[in-house]
């Protein structure tokens, strides 16, 4: 306590992990990955009214510059492998939000001959956003949940085996 009292007022103390996570979660660039009608809601979420940019999330047109993949729409079986390739092209650490019923589980088109029942059959998913399609508020909530999850990550002390901590 004595040490803190000697510091000037403009200084803040924090943990290194928290600061790293805070910087990372505040520039979460998401890849444009609109597959169906959910993409329209994703555009609205990125637009001025809902403004995902205020959380530091801006759209990117290439997986090479992205931290987050928002899978927005029906994933067809033909697209499944391409999705995996795009996910592998993203630099680590990377996250996935599955947006809408279709990418969660196939949704309305689950039994259709060409539809993959859930993007989690192909790539790991961090946050599932329900809805058909989810409103921009729901996607924003999903992003905030992901930020919460990111804040719990440890970078200095790596635990063996466990990759990412589960959301509390």
């Amino acid at each position, binding site marked *: 306590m004595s040490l803190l009292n000697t510091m000037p007022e403009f200084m803040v103390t924090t943990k290194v992990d928290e600061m790293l996570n805070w910087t990372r979660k505040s520039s979460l660039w998401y890849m444009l990955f609109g597959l169906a009608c959910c993409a329209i809601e994703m555009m609205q979420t990125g637009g001025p009214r809902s403004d995902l940019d205020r959380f530091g999330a801006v759209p990117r047109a290439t997986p090479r510059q992205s931290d987050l993949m928002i899978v927005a729409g029906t994933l067809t079986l033909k697209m499944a*492998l391409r999705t995996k390739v795009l996910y592998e092209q993203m630099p680590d650490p990377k996250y996935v939000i599955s947006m809408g019923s279709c990418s969660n589980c196939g949704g309305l088109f689950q039994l259709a001959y060409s539809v993959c029942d859930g993007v989690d059959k192909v790539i790991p998913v961090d946050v599932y956003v329900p809805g058909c399609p989810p409103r921009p508020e729901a996607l924003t909530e999903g992003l905030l949940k992901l930020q919460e999850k990111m804040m719990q990550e440890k970078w200095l002390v790596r635990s063996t085996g466990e990759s990412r901590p589960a959301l509390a």
Partner: protein
Amino acid sequence: MSQSLVTALASQALEGIVEVAESRGELVVRVLPVALVEVCTTLRDDPAFAFDFLMDVTAVDYPGREPRFEVVYHLYSLKLNHRVRLKVGASEASPHVPSVTPVWRGANWLERETYDMYGIQFDGHPDLRRIYLYEEFEGHPLRKDYPKEKRQPLVTRADVEPAQQRRQRERDSERYGRWQ
């Protein structure tokens, strides 16, 4: 239905026309598969018909009927503003129909779609591959006997590598991108 079209069709006395009927104000012509290309060429080139636009190619599956499939061609004349519908039968055992790509180039993708969804083989087509679905897909989903809840396997990278290599060879070949 345009009466001049019917009289023109009657005066031509085209070989291979089985039946001329009217359905909801439009002309329906049933053609034998062997005569299809010839009939189509006449319909395109004869100034009385001038069918310069192939609007759609599709098929209908009638289970239990012989021939089981019916390939349907919708023709339109931009010049004379009239339409006709051609129908050709294709049996279940060998669903072969001659391709009309030499007559209308636009038939290429339409016939690929019909092949993809119904498994109709268009003889003489320059590049008869699936167009919507992927090559590893099993079956033809718009056939009536396609199981409604059939699940298709998820394709892995190892599955597509032979196909990718083949496509690369096709691209490298001299024929790639050339017509006929």
